């Protein structure tokens, strides 16, 4: 089983951000996607999940040969795709409990009976424990008033419940202190496992100490310009992103985030 992205081009409000992305992620593989701010990493994440603001102008995205483009986000979830948001959205009045339950029930294979409220409580209790999260999380409003670390843990909790085939983690390491980073990284390792393909989008190398990718890709100006093994991330760490400029001397690294 594979997540295949072929020559993907996408724009926001008429401006092309992704300029032909090619990437294949196999089941059980972990890929890191690195690159400077504004290179299109988050745009790729949103485009894969089907955010209405991002228009795909050409290319293909398939899971197990099935086309994802044109599907609404909920249908992509049913094909096994998951996105951990860089900035999880808060929703007042919706309890974590009801939200997680809806997410869990909606990501289960068609035709399976949804678990009872008691079965769900047990399932969620195990996952909370794994992420060192307190039960009180469940009786708070969705992401409302959560610290940066709590939000990121909550994203991984959702991933743990939804058990996707392919997970895109958009800067899940940002805004975490060292302890939270370790907990989140351990969570990712436990949840991803051999059944899941993971695309770990990150700006920094530090999470790669905990989550070991087999493949590292560098994104720059809407394209993947370099792919390699773990050593590529160390090269990036040493030299910084400025060395990429060698690829396109005439262009400046965009400073703004998309």
């Amino acid at each position, binding site marked *: 089983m594979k997540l295949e992205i072929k020559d993907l081009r996408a724009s926001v409000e008429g401006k092309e951000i992704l300029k032909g992305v090619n990437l294949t992620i196999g089941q059980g593989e972990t890929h890191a996607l690195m690159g400077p701010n504004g290179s299109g990493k988050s745009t790729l994440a949103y485009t894969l*999940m*089907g*955010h*209405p603001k991002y228009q795909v102008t050409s290319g293909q995205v398939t899971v197990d040969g099935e086309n994802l483009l044109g599907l*609404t*986000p*909920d249908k992509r*979830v*049913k094909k096994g795709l998951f*996105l951990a*948001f860089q900035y*999880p*959205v808060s*929703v*007042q*009045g*919706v*309890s974590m*409990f*009801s*939200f997680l339950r*809806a*997410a869990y*029930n*909606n*990501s289960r294979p068609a035709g399976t009976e949804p678990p009872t*409220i008691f079965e769900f409580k047990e399932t969620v209790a195990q996952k909370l424990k794994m992420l060192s999260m307190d039960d009180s999380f*469940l*009786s*708070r*409003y*969705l992401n409302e008033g959560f610290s940066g670390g709590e939000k990121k843990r909550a994203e991984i909790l*959702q991933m743990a419940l*939804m058990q996707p085939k392919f997970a895109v983690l958009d800067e899940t390491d940002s805004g975490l202190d060292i302890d939270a980073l370790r907990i989140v990284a351990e969570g990712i390792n436990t949840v991803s496992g051999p059944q899941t393909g993971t695309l770990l989008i990150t700006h920094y190398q530090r999470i790669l100490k905990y989550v070991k990718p087999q493949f590292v890709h560098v994104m720059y100006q809407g394209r993947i310009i370099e792919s390699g093994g773990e050593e590529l991330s160390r090269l990036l760490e040493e030299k910084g992103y400025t060395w990429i400029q060698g690829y396109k001397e005439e262009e400046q690294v965009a400073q703004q985030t998309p």
Partner: protein
Amino acid sequence: MSQKAVSSFDEDLVRSISASLDEPAWLTSSRLDAFRQFAALPPEKNPLYTKYVSTFSFPLDRFKIIPGRSEIDFRSFFQGFLTGKEKDIILQGNETQVHTELSRDLESQGVRLMSFHAALKQEEAAIRKLIEGRLVKSGSDRFAAFVNAFFSGGTFVRVPTGVSLDRPLRRMLLLDSPSTSIVEQTFVIAEEEAKLVYLEELYSKGVPSPAFVASTTEVLARPGSHVDFSSIQLLGDRTTHVSNRGIETSNDSKATLSSLSLGAEVSRSRTNFFLNGRGSLAEGFEIFFTDGKQRYDYETNLVHNSPDSTGSTQARGVLKGESQSIFKGMIKIVNAAKNSRSYLAHHAMLLERTAKSDGVPSLEIDNNEVRATHSASVAQIDEEQLFYLMARGLSQDEAKKMVVLGFFEPVLSRVPIEQTREGARFMIEGKWQGEKRRLADRETLLAETGELTPEVKETEDIFERHYKYR
């Protein structure tokens, strides 16, 4: 006497209503005073109104206003609306007379739950005092004057001094006949140190047909008492609903109003909280959800006349389709009401570009040693929230529903009456799905939904928020 259709609202009609109800002369003359004020007051202007409400060119000839004496079989008429286990309830089907069930233990404690005119027969002096000291004054509001002049029935509730009820008193009005008009007055009185919960429910059934419901409601919380008043309005799509409420607190008493409005074509409501007692507390929780071409015009004012009083009212509404709403509210704190605190909030969410809502909060404060603030917002549903929920597998409709139901929670979760709180969620969800549901008790809810989702209780103190005026 059979039901009589009327062709105009005039003094003769006032007299004939009063005579048909066998009323004492003082009440007839009180009605006539109200009528003169009604006739003198100009029509209310409001961008939301249809011609029916603004000009009073309501098709009167089609409407019956004098109460009929025809009996209905309450059991079959209310089928589906009652579980059969109701104990303390007053039922009214169309304009016909009311049916009351009050358990013996409450009756023997002196609790009253009866029609206005039954109470008038039993204790005329007390009723006269209430009418003469009305909170909902005829001179202040044309619709109040209208009801005070033409009311054909009503409800009287009183819990005597020191009696604390552990279950709600209820009143249900159910309409099903075309061209029904209900004009009524309700009095709810908690005597000193009494405690009561009152649930008022207004429903229609059958094919939607034109109807008119006009009411005044007076809630009196005497010293040290506690009244929780709940009003559920799910009248039919072609009903015009006009309501005036006055809620008064006395020394160290507490009164709350929890209202859920889902029905009617036009609904126009005025609520005044009069904080007339030192250390008293008044709280309003108002929820509405409109669709189609529904129009709601609501106004809730907090009038602080006494020191150390605390008042708040919080409204939340969601508007679909081409529905429209206005929410006005004023905090008024007189010079004598020092150390009072007051809070007024109105928040609306629009689900479509065609829906409209306005919030108009204001302050009028004559004492510097008070804290008062208001907040208002009107916003479209948040697309990023919808995307986030859809990215968790919810369809667009499910995502919208979750956001909408969540939007009510900061107010709904504070509603002090469990049955209203849980029932309101069930009814709002029903409206989302195009079903008309009624307020159900917990047992019925469990039977119909299988389980109740655990609640998140709002704990933030609203008075700890930012103050515009302090």
